[in-house]
């Protein structure tokens, strides 16, 4: 017995000395996009994590300098495929701010509808990703299937399922097609029923609870300092939401709550998202009820000769992953002088992730990444 203990101690010592390096990504189902995390592990425990980006650099910001103000807008949806609309929204509002362009009231409501539908669609994907990273694949099949009904709405309204290219400076591109409001309400009824099934399968699931509670904890006192935003910050018990703090479009005319949860772990973040899905449905119902008739678009001039006054503007939008801000600078020409983009993933995907992974189990890396909602193209723009 004594011999065995000595042997065990020897092995443990040797293991400790022999830290192994693991490479997670750039192609890996547990990674939320094309980026890599280099993990130094001792046994199952991570001692150091280094994020490596650069696999997805598409030079969006530079490309926009070569395109006129309108052409730039078609690039934006590619910043984050699961939820492109907040980026379009930020850009449109920044351009409107710089130019002083009025947006019709109806367009504002349609934009809110788009943003909330996008939020729902994105959360549906998150359900799949978060549970998939824990081995609970049924959830993903359900939620991605239900997301299709939202994509159908997008297709009806914008003509595209994933890349909508719909919110543009001055308003939105097209008005509601006939009978669209009813379709939205029917879809909301259906989703409301489904989120109860999700609760049964996911939130009441002992495995899900045990795998998420106490994992990937962000200390509340550090969260703001680290630059954490969005649902991740609200999962630390801090009530912060641009829709309330700096209302845009018609959010100040709508009644909704900003859910928070204490704990700062994956579980808390999941609880926040669980509530937000319900809030989004509530917002969408209000939009359909309150939307005024009228213009949906304040036409921009001929895009080839459309110039914006000299100056700069910044607009930010609350996306699923957090704050999405766009800074534009104009030299008075037909093209942006500079477009700078700042998404939540820049913080969540690099510095925060490196901090959170230390001390965690290798098996939890994917779960933690998914709970942060990283979108690598947003980092590498």
């Amino acid at each position, binding site marked *: 017995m004594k011999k065995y203990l000595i042997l065990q101690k020897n092995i443990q010592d040797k293991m400790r000395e022999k830290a192994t390096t693991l490479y997670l990504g750039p192609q890996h189902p547990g990674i939320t996009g094309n980026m890599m995390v280099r993990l130094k592990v001792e046994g199952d425990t991570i001692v150091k994590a280094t994020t490596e980006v650069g696999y997805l650099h598409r030079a969006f910001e530079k490309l926009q300098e070569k395109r006129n103000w309108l052409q730039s807008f078609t690039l934006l949806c590619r910043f984050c495929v699961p939820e492109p609309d907040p980026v379009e929204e930020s850009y449109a509002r920044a351009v409107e701010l710089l130019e002083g362009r009025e947006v019709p009231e109806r367009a504002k409501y349609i934009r809110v509808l788009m943003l909330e539908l996008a939020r729902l669609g994105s959360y549906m994907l998150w359900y799949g990703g978060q549970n998939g990273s824990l081995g609970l694949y049924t959830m993903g099949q359900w939620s991605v299937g239900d997301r299709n009904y939202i994509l159908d709405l997008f297709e009806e309204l914008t003509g595209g399922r994933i890349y909508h290219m719909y919110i543009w400076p001055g308003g939105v591109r097209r008005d509601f097609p006939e009978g669209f409001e009813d379709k939205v309400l029917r879809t909301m009824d259906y989703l409301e029923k489904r989120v109860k099934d999700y609760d049964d*399968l996911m939130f009441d699931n002992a*495995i899900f609870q045990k795998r998420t509670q106490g994992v990937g904890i962000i200390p509340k006192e550090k969260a703001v300092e680290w630059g954490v935003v969005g649902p991740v910050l609200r999962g630390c018990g801090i009530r912060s939401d641009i829709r309330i703090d700096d209302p845009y479009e018609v959010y100040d005319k709508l009644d909704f709550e900003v859910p928070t949860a204490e704990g700062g772990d994956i579980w808390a973040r999941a609880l926040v998202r669980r509530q937000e899905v319900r809030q989004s449905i509530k917002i969408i119902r209000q939009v359909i009820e309150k939307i005024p008739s009228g213009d949906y678009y304040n036409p921009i001039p*001929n895009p080839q000769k459309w110039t914006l006054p000299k100056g700069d503007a910044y607009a930010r939008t609350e996306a699923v992953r957090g704050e999405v801000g766009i800074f534009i600078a104009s030299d008075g020409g037909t093209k942006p002088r500079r477009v700078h983009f700042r998404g939540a993933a820049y913080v969540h995907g690099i510095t925060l992730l490196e901090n959170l992974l230390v001390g965690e189990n290798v098996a939890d890396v994917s779960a933690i990444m998914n709970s942060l909602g990283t979108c690598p193209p947003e980092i590498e723009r």
Partner: protein
Amino acid sequence: MSFFDLKGTVKPLTALKQFGKKPHTISYPKESKEAADRYRGFHYNDIEECIGCGNCSTICQNAAIDMIHIEGVEGKKGDSGLRPRIDHGRCCWCALCVEVCPTGSLSLTKDYLYVSDDPDSFLWTPGVDNPEGKDKISFYTTNEISLNDFKRIPMPELEGMERVKSFAEVVLGYNEEQARAEASRCISCGLCTEACPEHMHIPEYINAIATGNDADAVRIIYDNNPLPEMCGKVCTRRCEDVCAIAVRGEPIAIRWLKRYATETALTSEITREIVNPEIKEANGKSVGIIGAGPSGLTAGYYLALRGYDVTIYEANAKAGGATMYGIPKYRFPIDSLDKQIEYIQSIGVKIHFNTKVGKDISFKEIYDKFDVVFMGVGFPDAWSLGVDGEDAKGSMQAFRFLHMVNSGEKVDIGDKVVVVGGGNVAIDAARVSRRLGAEVTILYRRRVEDMPADWEEIEGAEDEGVHIVPQGIPIKVHKDEKGHVKSVEYLKAEMVPDERGGRPKPVAIEGSNTIIEATSVMAAIGQMGDYSFLGKEFEDKIKIERGRFVVNDKQQTTDPKVFAGGDAVNRTADAISAIADGFKACKAIDEMLSKDKN
């Protein structure tokens, strides 16, 4: 939490109730989904409607659209003959090409499935390679949602009844803000450049105006047109007829923008400073030009820049030819060309005014004196009606009448004027008569929409109270006992379609005789040349056919030393064609004389 969590273990099992339910997405047997009514799928292009302006190609931020020649589509005025070809490997289906299409011919369809292992097969010409797409159009543009600006900035003008009180200029000109806004509507397709006889660099100077570089605009204009003031006021603007925006909206006011640009250069010195032309050293060759009309001035200006010694002989006291004397002063004020003539003279062009060739100086003298002669003599005479009683007092040629009024002579027209014709001269004569206090009727044998006159001119005449009688063919001018015009008798006409496919012909209806009272009758049915100045010797040498000089494609007459241009050569008979002739002749003369040198 205990190790065994009963609720957490049992609750997920409720998922079992989903067994046997119809799945969301996969359907057996596999059926393809019908796309939404607004789906952005593969492109479709209506080849007939498309004019090949290339705006789709310009807006495409992926460079997925090429403009290519396709079989069966030929270029013509207002159609480049090119059609878009889309690389579906690059396309991102943003549909901006659809939103900016000025004709609305381009749209997206519900088709979205195409599989091939041949990368080249993803390049296709919408409308040609997928004719079936016509029935599946889903994402299209309308006038309301188009990104093109179809509404023209209205030109400030004098009020209709205010105008007839004087010969003050009707058009007031754009101010800076209006000009920028109007110029910003242009999509720079260049169809106008092709349609302009002189091929002016229209998109370039409009772009300069849009971006606030008026001096650049003037410089670009002077590159091949030394008389922009003239064109800016009275050009027949073929460019606007073919404007891509005009397919569904009002064309860009190209003429007024040119006018705006020239107005920014206030004097001839400023013009010279802005244009800053490169004048070559004198080469010892000389060119004589007859007529200081648009073609003569153009040839003179560009030849002088190339180092030739240029002398122009002009019969009238002012330069400008038919534009100066044939166009009323409310459209083309008497001092309009002063600045430009001064500028042209400053380059070194010598102009002898009040010197009529054939009277004050013989053609032979000019012919012998210069290395090359250019004739821009125009059409000084007019056709008569050829009806009974035309010799009555008060019956006159509209063109002569305009010439007299413009020269400051007093003309007695009485209080009731009938103008016969439907061209710009007829409208001009009518509007001038209105200003002289007469009631005016225009008699035209076809319909109003067939009138060759400018639509703006016709509208202007109507605003000023000119009465237009379409489909009326004059047959007799009645005289009173003093031999003065008393009335005009005409027959009503009906339009008979032309069997050969031409425009419908007016045919008189027997017994529909109608009489209009009149104190004057003006014939405005066309002008003709007067070539008596040539003299016997040259009448044989220089061939004239159907009233016009015969020239080759270099504006050279049958006498190689003599070139000609303007109304006396081309059938279009407008200022810009004359300018084009002058420019062409200048190049040919330069080519010929510089060859001699070597």
